[in-house]
């Protein structure tokens, strides 16, 4: 049976754009049909924005790359259509084991907090994630949405102008030119768009290499995350074993920075390493082996005129903590509603600068957190190693030391606490829902809160009065009226009111809180809407 990543899902087809005398102008062009490009295109198409995705390939990602998808990503995927299928296909796990040298030092059980529609995270091969999104694109096409993926369309040149972007695209049938009001570059860590525009990353915090192997085995390994510090089979480095769907296991072996990549990825050198790890008598097949080199760095800003960078093209982090694809999906989530308002003339272009500012903050947070993990996993000095080993030795016997063990922290959404789109906090409410926060989910009887906040500005009232809708300078806001009584588990109250008796929230289309007060006050909320759309 062919693997899904061996099947062309969006084969090259000649576009009418290739036969016109003058280049056709599109609203938005997305470069790259990876998880981020697909998410952005679906988001725009769902909101009625015409979009074309150009990809130099015609298949989903070869091999497995991203593996761990966080709750926030699944919440966003629910809005895009596909979250449910991802959860159904993915693997969920609760038990993690930590090994140090040749012994298990402890195991932990992640008891997820209840009251959320989605699990804290799932393991899923990137090619499944992409396949589900490609299916969604086809579904939208069937419904008449203006979205297309052009396979084997490789962008060879990018010309930037004040109010449009011009592209030269190579195809199997020769080149053609095409234009867009806006360009979103989701073309990965090596981003040709970034290079063609002469832009680069700033700084370089860290660099390391990993041997990434996806092995198929029928072995009786439990569905757990196993992490090794300094194991006998990979001295001085780390290792990770993680389960994915279809009996595929992800193995990450840290190799250090000074290695011969071609040598390390030869099967005759890989297999002995894996045997030492899994045991001599465990039978397995290699599905995929690669050497993954990462750096922690980002572009200075993610908007350059009419070109917007999202995902790995804009920022890169270490793999610890699943912050690559997850943060990229959140980039798209942040960008698309802003781009829609700008395209419709309902918000000024400077709103898109807030995309850059907010997601730069998120990238810095992700880089900082994954760097902390990296420094724990790979101590840089003799003293760092001494302290790290002290933590691990204590963790075997004493619970207190376990929170200090850092083999990657769970990716949580960034709170844009000082964003210019926020209004001052005017509710004595919980910290987790202060302006800038991503709305936490909450149960509402048989349903959940987040799907009711999807894709539009919402005025969430909890035991408070307000008009059913407001329009401020072209921006429509719809009320969602709730009561603490709608959630007998009281999570809605705990997450959105705390000690307050009532609350009114202005929630952005990306489900981040823009403003909140105890009661509705028209002038304050009109001003909050203006702020949230870059008008104040």
């Amino acid at each position, binding site marked *: 049976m062919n693997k899904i990543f061996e099947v062309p899902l969006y084969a090259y087809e000649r576009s009418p754009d290739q036969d016109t005398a003058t280049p056709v102008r599109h609203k938005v062009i997305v470069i790259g049909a990876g998880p981020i490009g697909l998410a952005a295109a679906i988001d725009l198409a769902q909101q009625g924005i015409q979009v074309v995705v150009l990809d130099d390939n015609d298949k989903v990602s070869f091999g497995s790359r991203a593996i761990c998808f966080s709750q926030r990503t699944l919440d966003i995927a629910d809005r895009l259509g596909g979250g449910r299928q991802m959860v159904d296909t993915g693997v969920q796990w609760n038990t993690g084991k930590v090994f140090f040298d040749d012994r298990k030092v402890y195991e932990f059980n992640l008891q997820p907090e209840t009251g959320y529609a989605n699990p804290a995270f799932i393991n899923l091969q990137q090619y499944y994630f992409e396949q589900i999104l490609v299916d969604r694109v086809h579904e939208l096409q069937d419904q008449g949405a203006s979205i297309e993926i052009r396979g084997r369309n490789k962008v060879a040149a990018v010309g930037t102008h004040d109010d449009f972007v011009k592209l030269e695209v190579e195809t199997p049938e020769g080149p053609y030119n095409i234009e867009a009001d806006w360009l979103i570059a989701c073309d990965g860590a090596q981003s040709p768009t970034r290079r063609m525009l002469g832009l680069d990353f700033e700084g370089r915090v860290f660099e390391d290499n990993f041997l990434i192997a996806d092995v198929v085995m029928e072995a009786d390994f439990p569905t757990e995350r196993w992490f090794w510090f300094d194991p006998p089979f990979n001295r001085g480095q780390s290792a990770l074993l993680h389960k994915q769907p279809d009996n595929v296991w992800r193995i990450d072996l840290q190799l250090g920075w000074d290695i011969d990549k071609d040598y390390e990825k030869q099967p005759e050198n890989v297999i002995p390493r894996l045997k030492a790890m899994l045991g001599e008598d465990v039978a397995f097949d290699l599905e995929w082996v690669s050497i993954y080199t990462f750096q922690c760095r980002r572009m200075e800003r993610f908007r350059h005129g009419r070109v917007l960078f999202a995902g790995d093209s804009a920022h890169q982090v270490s793999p610890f903590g699943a912050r690559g694809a997850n943060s990229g999906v959140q980039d798209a989530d942040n960008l698309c509603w802003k781009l829609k308002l700008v395209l419709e003339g309902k918000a000024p272009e400077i709103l898109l600068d807030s995309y850059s500012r907010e997601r730069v903050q998120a990238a810095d947070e992700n880089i900082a957190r994954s760097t902390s993990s990296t420094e724990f996993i790979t101590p840089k000095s003799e003293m760092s190693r*001494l302290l790290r*080993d*002290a933590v691990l030795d204590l963790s075997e016997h004493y619970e207190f030391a376990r929170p*200090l063990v850092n083999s990657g922290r769970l990716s949580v959404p960034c709170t844009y606490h000082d964003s210019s789109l926020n209004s001052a906090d005017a509710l004595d409410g919980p910290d987790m829902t202060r302006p800038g926060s991503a709305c936490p989910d909450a149960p509402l009887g048989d349903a959940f809160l987040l799907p009711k906040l999807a894709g539009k500005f919402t005025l969430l009232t909890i035991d408070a009065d307000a008009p059913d809708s407001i329009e401020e300078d072209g921006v429509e806001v719809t009320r969602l009226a709730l009561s603490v009584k709608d959630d007998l588990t009281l999570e809605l109250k705990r997450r959105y009111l705390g000690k307050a008796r009532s609350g009114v929230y202005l929630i952005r289309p990306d489900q981040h809180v823009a403003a909140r007060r105890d009661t509705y006050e028209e002038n304050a909320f009109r001003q909050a809407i203006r702020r949230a759309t870059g008008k104040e």
Partner: protein
Amino acid sequence: MADLILTPNIDDADDFFADLLATHEGLEKGESDALNARLVLVLANHIGNSDVLKQALHTAALKDA
């Protein structure tokens, strides 16, 4: 903000110091270093308060001394 205690506070200073030395007795340098590292972590957890810990780190660095 909680304050780090920088006046004498150990119940019996001489006994404590003798115990500290005794704990290290017979250890190689590497073992002693590891023990000290574990001791720092055990004590830090007991203190817990981040203000006090920050002051302790600053004090130990002898930057103001």
